[in-house]
């Protein structure tokens, strides 16, 4: 049983199998379900550890399975995929613990955790995809796995939000499919190769390649919430907190951004893409989204909606990073993929805690929450400051590299202003929350205090996850230069992409 | 009969066939339409014998016009009993709104086009010399087929599989009719003249069926024609007021209607399991096997066609059939 061919499959299966078993579990077998979940998460973490070590030492892991002539399902572990797999695995473990706490006595839990595991398997599969065909398969699977999670609560708004989410993502999926088929007809099965493969095609195809690029980016842009295609994201806020955390920090949104990174670097090749003038177009779209998202976030009173709009803008940093030609810009974009994930999940955990413990849903109700729930609010503050770009938290590192990259690539004239305005806007919609939470006196009573203030401010399973991810965000910033840190790994990716 | 007088005969025959067909389809009254259709069938039988196809002529007369006509007439009388005659006449021919006129023209043009294309292809197809590969092959293998009548040889030996499936079609039809509901009510007992006629006619039909079955091996005839004749006897009995036409009830009836396909399949499988090709009779036994299959098929076909005329699951003997529209039958338990 040589590990090289089976490891990627095992990584995907380690969450798929528990998920399928959980589906058929009896509703009241809580202990077995928790054991299965945590065992799956733990096993996946172990396997990913082995994979990180292997890929670092130029070891090739690949599972190949022919579905049809010319169409192979390929799971291939390279530097970029390992980064995203690690992010998903760590955050899935944390979110599972959080979800177990969050859904303490609510119905349909077998169904929830079943689809929850399917969703992570799809994300990990998408990360490990070795060619565009496999990527499209897992991209659509992700949509199917997340739809029931968004509609989990069953309220009319939940079903409506889920339907909008579905319309956007399946429509995007169709565009991506047509683009991929067209690419497949032109250039044969397009595997992800560092440095891209399409530059070898003859010149008369360039026009078609541009059209294909537009199709692919629109298909991926739906999930990466680029401006015209972002409508579903605020609507999907009706989902329970762990789902919004998982969707917005790890699974769906990142899948889109990751797809854009793959298409630009490993399909077209960044130089060929620039030669076709695609990068500037992408950069403009990202820039608009960054500013527009931040502006809309300002106007939202509902906490989760504000965080959702903040995600719309933050994810486009990654697209911006890919649009900046040059290794430093790439490092900035890719490392933000991890940093944004860690910070945003902390914010959503905190928002979930506020809602679950004190029934707080909007910013105006957050006066003096810091005194009642100091730990959660501390985590919230660390993440919020990180999002603004305050050193030494992770957000600062990625924004720094993005700025540096823009300077180096001579695109500073418009990238730096975008970064600055967006940081200012971030501050504009995060700092008032912090001020309100720490320096305002709390109102007479909390809207709906479900969990009384005992030794811990809220149940353990709800409290620890945000604290863990907050320390991760801090560590990613402080120990950015340490080996195996997200920054070092992003540098390794950039180094291999540019063939330095 | 030199060729010109033959031609005149053909033209007359075809003109009468076409006019009968046209009349049958054009009349508004259902009863006339059925009667004209039966006449069309009979004249058609004359045409088949003119074209040297006696087997088909027999079948056309017995099944094509005889039994189909009986089924159609029974349907007409049954539905006439329920709906007033006027409503029964509202056929598409008569409301002259623009849409139906246009539709009628479109359909006429479409049918004319189909006829034209068919004729054009036929002209082209019969242009070359007629292809005789198959007739010669049949003639060559005739003596190995166990019968001397080539049509029966093709039906029961060379293309036996077709006939097996065709018996399955008959079985499906009768099972479908059974699944739809109980049988329709019977008819009033026959008056003296009709009763006298049946006393003569039924034994004659049974005798003729037996002869046709036997003759099928070497002359026009065979299981289908014999079965149809036997069915005609059954229909006459049914019309004479006998409720259950001597048909067994329950289990034995099931055996009877399954006999045709059953015997055929068993013979085929037995041969298949003893190493011969499926439905490949050994030449020595071919004649007897074909006769065995044909007699079972005759019984099944007769039972099926009569049950189709009865129109539903036969009631257990003795219980009066509940009236479904037709005139009620004074409960006379079948005397036969």
């Amino acid at each position, binding site marked *: 049983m040589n590990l090289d061919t089976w490891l990627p499959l095992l990584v995907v299966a380690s969450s798929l199998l528990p998920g399928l078993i959980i589906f058929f579990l009896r509703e009241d077998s809580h202990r077995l379900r928790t054991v299965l979940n945590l065992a799956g998460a733990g096993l996946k973490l172990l396997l990913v550890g082995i994979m990180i070590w292997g890929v670092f030492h130029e070891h090739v892991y690949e599972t190949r399975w022919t579905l049809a002539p010319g169409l192979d399902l390929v799971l291939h572990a390279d530097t970029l995929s390992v980064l995203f797999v690690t992010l998903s695995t760590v955050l899935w473990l944390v979110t599972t613990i959080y979800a177990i706490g969050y859904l303490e006595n609510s119905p349909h839990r077998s169904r929830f955790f079943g689809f929850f595991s399917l969703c992570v398997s799809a994300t990990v599969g998408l990360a490990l995809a070795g060619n565009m065909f496999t990527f499209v398969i897992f991209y*659509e699977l992700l949509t*199917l796995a997340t739809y029931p999670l968004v509609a989990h609560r069953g309220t009319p708004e939940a079903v409506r939000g889920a339907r909008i989410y579905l319309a956007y993502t399946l429509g995007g999926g169709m565009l991506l499919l*047509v683009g991929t088929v067209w690419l497949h007809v032109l250039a044969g099965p397009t595997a992800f190769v560092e440095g891209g493969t399409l530059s070898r095609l003859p010149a008369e195809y360039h026009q078609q390649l541009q059209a294909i690029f537009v199709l692919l980016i629109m298909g991926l842009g739906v999930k990466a919430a680029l401006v015209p295609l972002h409508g579903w994201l605020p609507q999907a806020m009706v989902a329970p907190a762990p789902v919004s955390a998982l969707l917005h920090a790890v699974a769906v949104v990142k899948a889109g951004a990751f797809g854009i990174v793959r298409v630009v670097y490993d399909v077209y090749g960044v130089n060929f893409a620039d030669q076709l003038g695609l990068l500037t177009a992408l950069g403009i779209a990202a820039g608009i989204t960054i500013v527009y998202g931040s502006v809309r976030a300002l106007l939202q009173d509902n906490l989760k909606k504000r965080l959702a709009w903040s995600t719309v803008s933050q994810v486009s940093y990654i697209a911006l990073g890919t649009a900046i030609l040059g290794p430093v810009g790439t490092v900035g974009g890719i490392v933000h993929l991890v940093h944004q994930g860690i910070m945003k999940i902390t914010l959503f955990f905190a928002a979930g805690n506020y809602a679950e413990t004190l029934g707080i849903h909007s910013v105006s109700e957050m006066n003096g929450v810091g005194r009642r729930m100091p730990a959660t609010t501390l985590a919230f503050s660390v993440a919020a400051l990180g999002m603004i770009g305050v050193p030494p938290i992770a957000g600062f590192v990625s924004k720094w590299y993005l700025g540096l990259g823009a300077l180096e690539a001579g695109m500073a004239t418009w990238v730096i202003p975008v970064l600055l305005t967006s940081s200012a806007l971030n501050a504009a919609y995060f700092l008032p929350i912090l001020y309100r939470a720490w320096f305002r006196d709390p109102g007479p009573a909390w809207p709906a205090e479900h969990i009384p203030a005992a030794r811990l401010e809220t149940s353990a399973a709800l409290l620890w996850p945000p604290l863990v991810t907050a320390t991760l965000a801090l560590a990613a910033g402080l120990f950015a230069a340490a080996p195996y840190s997200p920054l070092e790994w992003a540098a390794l990716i950039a180094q291999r992409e540019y063939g330095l | 009969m030199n060729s010109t007088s033959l031609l005149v005969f053909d033209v007359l025959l075809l003109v009468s066939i076409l006019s009968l067909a046209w009349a049958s389809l054009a009349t508004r009254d259902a009863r006339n339409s059925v009667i004209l259709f039966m006449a069309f069938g009979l004249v058609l039988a004359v045409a088949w014998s003119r074209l040297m196809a006696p087997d088909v002529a027999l079948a056309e007369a017995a099944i094509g016009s005889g039994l189909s006509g009986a089924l159609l007439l029974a349907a007409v009388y049954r539905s006439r009993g329920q709906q007033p005659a006027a409503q029964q006449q509202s056929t598409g021919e008569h409301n002259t709104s623009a849409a139906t006129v246009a539709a009628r023209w479109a359909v006429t043009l479409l049918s004319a086009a189909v006829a034209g294309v068919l004729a054009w*292809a036929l002209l082209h197809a019969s242009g070359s010399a007629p292809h005789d590969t198959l007739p010669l092959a049949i003639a060559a293998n005739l003596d190995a087929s166990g019968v001397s009548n080539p049509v029966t040889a093709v039906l029961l030996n060379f*293309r036996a599989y077709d006939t097996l499936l065709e018996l399955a079609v008959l079985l499906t039809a009768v099972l479908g009719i059974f699944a739809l509901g109980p049988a329709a009510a019977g008819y009033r007992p026959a008056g003296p003249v009709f009763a006298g006629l049946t006393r003569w006619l039924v034994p004659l039909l049974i005798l003729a069926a037996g002869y046709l079955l036997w003759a099928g091996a070497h002359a026009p005839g065979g299981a289908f024609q014999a079965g149809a004749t036997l069915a005609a006897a059954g229909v006459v009995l049914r019309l004479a007021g006998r409720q259950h036409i001597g048909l067994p009830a329950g289990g034995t009836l099931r055996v009877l209607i399954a006999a045709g396909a059953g015997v055929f399949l068993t013979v085929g499988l037995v041969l298949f399991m003893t190493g011969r090709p499926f439905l490949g009779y050994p030449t020595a036994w071919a004649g007897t096997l074909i006769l065995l299959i044909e007699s079972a098929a005759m019984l099944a076909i007769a039972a099926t066609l009569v049950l189709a005329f009865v129109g539903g699951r036969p009631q257990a003997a003795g219980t009066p059939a509940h009236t479904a529209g037709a005139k009620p039958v004074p409960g006379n338990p079948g005397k036969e």
Partner: protein
Amino acid sequence: MTDAIIWVVALPLAGALAALLLPRLATAVAVGTAVATSVSAAALLRGVATQGVLHYELGGWSAGLGIALRADGLSAMLLMMTALVVLAASIYTSAYITAPAERARFWPLWLLLWTALNALLLSGDLFNLYVTLELLGLSAVALAAFGGKRAAVAAALRYLLVGLLGSMMFLAGVSLIYAGYGTLDMAQLAHMVTAGPTAWTALALMTAGLLLKTALFPLHFWLPPAHASAPAPVSAVLSALVVKAAFYLVLRLWLHVFADVVTPAAANLLGALGAAAVLWGSWQALQAERLKLLAAYSTVAQLGYLFMFFPLLQALPSVTARDVAAGGLVMLALTHGFAKAGLFLAIGIIQQRSGHDSIQQLDGTAQRLPATTFSIALAGVALIGLPPSGAFLGKWQLLAGAVATGQWVWVVVTAIGSLLAMAYIFRVIGHAFGHQSYPNLPVTVAREEWPALLLAAVAVLGLGLAGAPVWQLLEIRV
């Protein structure tokens, strides 16, 4: 292995007769026959895979004189699909129809339908195809009218008349072929047929007859009422198999027998009708009030996709490209067979539990039957053509073929069709999320829910992930 070619037809016929003669044991006989026939179908598939095309001359007479049965890759795969679908539906029916009198009347017709399907898929003789088409039509009508509800009988009657008209036109075509070429065996015809008035007219007539039976748009009006009012297992078999058998004949005639007679214009016409069927069927499915009508219109649409392959197969330059596209076509047909059968069986469970199948009032029942709703969702995924279903591979080849031959209209139609399919499938699944009480165990009615779930699972996971052999099997041709 070649014996299997006879058992596959003889067993269901023998089973039908046995079920007729032993009414009380009908269910046991039927399920037993179903298992036995499935085993022989599997043996046939393995035989074809190992020894290539299986050829059997019935009665020992040579193909021209007698009738030849032929099993190549395409027919063996469809036979296997038919066997699995009918086996699952038979197990389902053993719990769905419980009254002994009804059972005794149901099973013989059911097995006769199966005999017709298997005989049609194996027959190599044109007139024999006419007889199998009639047997198929009559048994399908008898089953569609089973239960005798007014709507079912009226729809079955129209289905019968349309079927008869179709068969008559098919027979006219067969007569022309015999007049022109003197033989009825398809293999011989394939070598003799040359482009000319006889061949064109015969093909046109036969195709017109078969299009009536496949219910391709504008000739589809009879299908929705017939499939929607029939009992659940019957509509499953009607939609998944009966309509597809007639399509198989069109495929056999156009690709193998009349290959060089077919003109691009004719293929494009079929493709255009297919495209219209996709759009019309999907749109009607979206408007459907009842689940069964939705499923029936979805059949009309899915058959449209299959017909859209014809212009591609005509225009694709290289043989390999054509084989890959033909593989996509077969994959789409197989997946639709399994998925649609699973969908109809699941709808049958809902209809039995709640007494109606209207989509608006679906909330309560959908949540109390989680396994059934999951089967509908899985079948829906396969009908839309989302990964990991076999239909995804099929649609991929359809799109690839269209792009390669520059016929962009099929790409646009497929995209719109898929989006409409997403709309009408997820309109139904949306009802599965609510606050109704949730049973402890997902599977409530085992003998009915497992067949539906397994059929849908085969369509999604089975054909989706293990679909590669379809292409290898398709290489084995007459």
